[in-house]
């Protein structure tokens, strides 16, 4: 049996990173589809003003979709930003600091965006 501990452990085939990789792809797909739906709505109908703009986002199914996309964005950006920090930032303390800052940044923005959405 392949060794799964210590310095000679098998480093492939243990799904290392698969979940991150997959969640980044799936969230990307959701956001891409949402983009198409939003663009289709923007391009159809009369001249864009506050009425139509806010009507788009206050439709219940659109709120549902937008909420999913806001959460997807946070997950997607977390995986991507973590990749960037892991690739370029070598000192562990700085990397940890940046990762924590990223989480704070993303969670804060997510909360704000959700508040904008559900207040409509």
């Amino acid at each position: 049996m392949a060794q799964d501990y210590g310095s000679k452990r098998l480093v492939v085939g243990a799904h290392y990173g698969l979940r991150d990789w997959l969640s980044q792809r799936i969230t990307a797909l959701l956001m891409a589809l949402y983009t198409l739906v939003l663009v289709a709505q923007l391009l159809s109908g009369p001249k864009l003003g506050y009425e139509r703009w806010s009507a788009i986002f206050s439709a219940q199914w659109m709120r549902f979709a937008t909420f999913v996309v806001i959460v997807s964005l946070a997950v997607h950006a977390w995986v991507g930003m973590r990749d960037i920090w892991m690739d370029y930032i070598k000192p562990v303390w700085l990397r940890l600091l940046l990762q924590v800052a990223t989480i704070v940044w993303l969670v804060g923005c997510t909360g704000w965006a959700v508040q904008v959405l559900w207040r409509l």
Partner: protein
Amino acid sequence: MAEHTKPRPGENMRLIEALQYKLPPAGWVSILHRLSALLMVGLLPLIVWLLDVSLGSEVSYERFSNAFIAGIGFVPAFLLKLIVLALIWAYLHHFVAGVRHLWMDATHSVSKQQGRISAIVTLASSGVLTLVLGAKLFGLY
């Protein structure tokens, strides 16, 4: 473990050396994918703020559209438009480059030739779309 700890070439490459590297189109798509991601995440509060003022109320919507005409606070309209243009490019590039990734993941078609062509298509299509939307943003049509 010796073979795993051997330093690889380029491991300690300095940024200045990396910048002198001549990148193929696919390399440009890749690094711009990351740069566009950084730009969008860095400016995320601006994006949410734009959503906030544009959706808040009719009054705040006025403030939103006026920001692109007369500027807002210490930010002149021209600068705001320039930043939004950068965000538009970032989104488009990230979108197309992402679709290219998904397409390669799904079809496993990753020949050198296809990678080169799809990279050029990515750079060109996001560039052209940015110009089209940028012209609209700056009121050229």
